[in-house]
Each structure stands twice: as C-alpha cells, then as structure tokens.
C-alpha cells in the first residue's frame, strides 16, 4: 500500500517536472500573433466553434450518466469517478503531447511538432496564407486556442467510450493509465492519419470521416473491445453451462438522461465539425444528425420488440446513439433520406450486435462496443454508399459515384482497426503487468465503490428520516 502510494507520488512529481519545463516553452506560445481587427466571419466562426465545443464537452455528462445508469449501484461511484477523471486527464496530456502528434506537422504517420501548443501559428489565417506548425488545421479560420478546445473535447469523447465497456471490474488507476495512453498515442496517431494530413487523408481518393465515426467512435470502440476481452466478463454474467445472465442497470432514469444529453451534445459534435458558421453546411449536418438518431431509436425499439417481445428502453437508447454514431462520418455528404436509411440500419444493427457480443461472451455492460465500434464502422462505410454529391462533389456508390470512395472507406476502417487493436493490446498488457487490470474477486462482489473509493453512491437507507450511522 505504502509503496504503491509512493509510486504515484513519484509519478506526480515527474509530471510536475514535465509541466515546469513545458511551461517555459508554453510562455512563448502565449505570445500569440496580433489579432486581426474585428471581422464578422472570424467572429461568427469562433462563436460557432466554441459553443459547439461546449456542447461536445457536455457529452461527458451524458457518457457518465448512461454508463452509471446501466451498471449496478454498488459500482456507481467508481464509474462516475472514471468519467470525471478521464476528461481531466485527457486535457492535460492531449495539450502536452496528443495535439502535436495529431495535428502538428510531421510525417504521414504522426505529427511531430506543436508540443504544448508551442510553435509558429498565424491562425486565423487560412489556406496558403497560413504559416505554422498546424498546417492540417489551416482550413478553418479560428484562433488556435479555439481549434485546440474543439479537438480536445473530441479526444475526451474517444477516451470516455472505453469506460463503459470495462465498467464494474477495472481498477480505477489502471483505467487512469489507459486514458493517458489514449490521449498521448492511440487517439492522436490514428487521428493524424485522417484529420492531421496523414496518409489516409492524402490517398488519391481520400478517406473521409466528417465528424469522427472512425476517428472518435471506432478508435474508442476498438480500445474498448480489447479492454473488455482482456478483462473478461463480470462475475456471474456467463454461467458455466453457457447461459447469459442479465445484469440490469440500476437506474434507467439516469441512463435516459444521459442519452438525451449525448444527443444534445451531438448537435455540437457533428454540426460543429464544420468549424465554421457555414449556414448551409451546419443546417444540413443538423437535419441529418437529427433524423439518423430519431430513426435509430424507432428501428431499435421495433427490432427489440420483434426479437425480444417488449420495447426494451435500454435498446431504444442504444439505438438512438447508434444512429448518431453512424451518421457522424457521412453527415455532411448525405441527404436526409440517406440519413433515414443509415439510421435505420444502425438501430437494427445495434440490437443484433448486443446479442452477438453476449453470444461470444464479450461482456460490455453498457453496449459501448455495439454502439461505437459496430456503428462507427457502419457509418464510415455508409459514406461510401450514400454520399449524394451535396457538398464537395463527394458521391457514393448508390448515387452513381462508383466504388472508389467505398474502397477508401474500407481501407481506413481496416487500417485504423489494425492499428488500434495492436497498440491498445500492448498498452492494456503493459498496464496489466505493472499495476494489474482487474479488481479482486471479493471487491468485485462487494462493489468497487467500497473497495476502490471507500464510498457508496447512495449511503442513505432510503426513506429513513435520520440516516447518519446507517451506512
């Protein structure tokens, strides 16, 4: 115990040293270029990017509530704690390292400049007028800090997806460590390939992912999948005779609340990814996002009703999220009708995926893999099918654009999949050998809240009028 504690103290001290050194450079970065005099487009774009970033930030609440609601009360503090710390940690490490790897100038495989936002940058200059180390973001005319904030909240989302799939059995500090790896290496490298001017973005027919079905959701989903496999299922989830036991979540109100917050946040996630107040684009992306989520919910409700005999609320929630994940990649290039199809498929897919992962005994308490990985892939591919030449000339197979885009999409899906599986496998295994992944069996039975946090989420005897002492 004592030794473990000091291990962490050293870790913090190390971090603080890094911070201090970093600070020196950071200072210079602070001496930003002079702001241009007030410009309407510059202002409108920045307002739009920041407000949508706030909405995406708010999705942290959504994830926290969905995940906590779909797990048992004895693990609620643990899940909440993970969801609280994951964005905090991502902020620090994505700022220091991740952003430079993702968007800094470098090789086709990773960026290698712009650590701690340090380096030349004359944002909001755009296109050829841009001179600096974040050339891959030169298409949007907002201040560098606004670019960073918007990308940061996306990085936070990718990390938080993992949290749900590994819930109810992972050690708190092991998850903490994995989050650091997500922010430093897993997310930014694959992200660089797609959004950072890397090799996928510079293929002849570039791989496209408007708001991150692959960059955010699939990356998070792959990492979650490997984590869930390595951890193994929760005690009692699968019996020796192969039966699947349901482990109902403890608060469906909380889960529903979380879903609505996520949907609300998605109106920042997708429309904000224009990173500009371009009226037609943001209106188009908004309607597509709304429709895909809505039909995802309807489709999952009916799919669950037909297969399971009842309209399962948790499936409806997953269905909406599935529709939203799927439309995330193509939302700028498809028609509302395309969104309808994409969302319907997503809603059905998620129900089957949940059943499938249970069948292969990958225990994912909240359905994160089915929602984010499966539909992240589906959404990314769907772009190659349904892109309707509504923006930038992107046209998919069903709209007469041939198979080129679809092939690029497949390439991207595979490449990202292989990369994330391999790297996150290594990271999970390193963490496992250094600090262990899974809590003790007894702790898991009693609940991680007491074991890891010495706390209960709901310590009152409910309804008792004086509760101190009854804990």
């Amino acid at each position: 115990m004592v030794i473990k504690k000091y291990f962490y103290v050293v870790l913090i001290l190390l971090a603080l040293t890094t911070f201090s050194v970093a600070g020196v450079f950071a200072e210079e970065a602070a001496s930003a270029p002079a702001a241009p005099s007030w410009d309407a487009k510059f202002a409108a774009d920045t307002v739009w990017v920041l407000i949508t970033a706030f909405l995406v930030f708010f999705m942290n609440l959504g994830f926290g509530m969905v995940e906590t609601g779909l797990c048992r009360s004895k693990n609620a503090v643990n899940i909440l704690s993970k969801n609280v710390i994951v964005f905090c940690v991502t902020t620090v490490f994505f700022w220091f390292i991740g952003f430079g790897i993702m968007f800094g100038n470098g090789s086709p495989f990773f960026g290698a400049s712009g650590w701690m936002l340090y380096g030349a940058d004359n944002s909001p200059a755009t296109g050829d007028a841009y001179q600096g180390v974040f050339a891959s973001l030169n298409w949007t005319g907002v201040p560098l800090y606004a670019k960073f904030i918007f990308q940061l909240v996306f990085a936070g989302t990718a990390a938080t997806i993992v949290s749900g799939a590994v819930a109810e059995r992972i050690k708190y500090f092991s998850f903490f460590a994995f989050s650091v790896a997500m922010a430093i290496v897993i997310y930014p490298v694959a992200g660089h390939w797609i959004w950072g001017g890397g090799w996928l973005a510079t293929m002849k027919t570039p791989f496209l992912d408007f708001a991150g079905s692959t960059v955010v959701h699939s990356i998070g989903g792959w990492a979650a999948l490997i984590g869930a496999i390595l951890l193994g299922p929760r005690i009692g989830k699968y019996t020796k005779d192969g039966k699947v036991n349901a482990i109902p979540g403890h608060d469906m109100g909380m889960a529903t609340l979380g879903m609505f917050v996520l949907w609300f946040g998605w109106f920042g996630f997708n429309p904000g990814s224009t990173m500009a107040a371009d009226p037609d684009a943001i209106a188009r992306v908004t309607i597509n996002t709304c429709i895909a989520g809505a039909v995802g919910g309807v489709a999952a409700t009916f799919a669950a009703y037909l297969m399971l005999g009842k309209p399962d609320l948790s499936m409806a929630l997953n269905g909406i999220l599935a529709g939203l994940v799927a439309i995330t990649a193509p939302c700028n290039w498809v028609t509302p009708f395309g969104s309808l199809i994409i969302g319907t498929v997503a809603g059905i897919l998620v129900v089957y995926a949940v059943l499938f992962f249970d069948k292969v005994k990958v225990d994912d308490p909240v359905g994160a893999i089915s929602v984010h990985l499966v539909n992240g892939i589906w959404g990314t591919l769907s772009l190659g099918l349904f892109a309707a030449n509504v923006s930038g000339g992107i046209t998919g197979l069903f709209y007469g654009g041939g198979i080129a885009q679809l092939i690029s999409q497949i390439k991207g899906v595979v490449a990202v999949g292989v990369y994330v599986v391999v790297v996150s496998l290594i990271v999970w295994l390193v963490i496992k050998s250094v600090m262990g992944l899974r809590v003790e069996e007894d702790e898991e039975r009693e609940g991680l809240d007491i074991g890891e946090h010495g706390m209960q989420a709901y310590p009152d005897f409910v309804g008792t009028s004086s509760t101190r002492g009854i804990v």
Partner: protein
Amino acid sequence: MKKIEAIIKPFKLDEVKDELNKAGIQGITVSEVKGFGRQKGHTELYRGAEYVVDFLPKVKLEIIVTDDLAEKVINTIMNTAKTGRIGDGKIFVSNLEDAIRIRTGERGKDAI
C-alpha cells in the same frame, strides 16, 4: 401475546391497515420484502439476456396482539388481503414472551 406476521400484496396495505385499525389494533410494523412462492415470477429479457424475476415485491406486516385478539386479526387480514389469486400471501403466527414500551417501561399486555 402473539406475533402475527403477514406477507401481502403491496397494494393491499392501505386497506388492510384501515381494517386492522377498525378491529382495534394499536400498532403495526411494516417492511418491504421480496417473496418467492407458488406465484411464479416471470422471465424477463434485459438487452437480450434472460433474467428470472422470481422474487416478487411484497409487504410484510408484523402485529403484536394479545392472545384473544389473534383470531380477529388473522381473519381481518385474510378477508381484506384476499384477491383470490395466487400470490395473495400468508400469515404466520408465533408466540411472544414479552413486550416492552420503551417510552414508559410498561411490560407485557400493557405495552402493546
């Protein structure tokens, strides 16, 4: 003195309480329980996986009465809590040796 424990359907609680009151009962202690009995639970699906809800919500009443009142209480509960359907619940009677009222220290019958 007798201790009468009755396991009944939750929605019957109010009615049973009112009738017991009329029957002259002075006190009841109620708790929430889950019951497993002849009334079989149901198999539900949560996210496609089965789970058996075989513990059904019930309410348990504990009533301490003098021996002479016992039959009246039993009958009152039986008549009021009965719906005629499986799962109506049961009444258990046991012997009580002593009762004490904390406030006054009274014991035995006086304490009920």
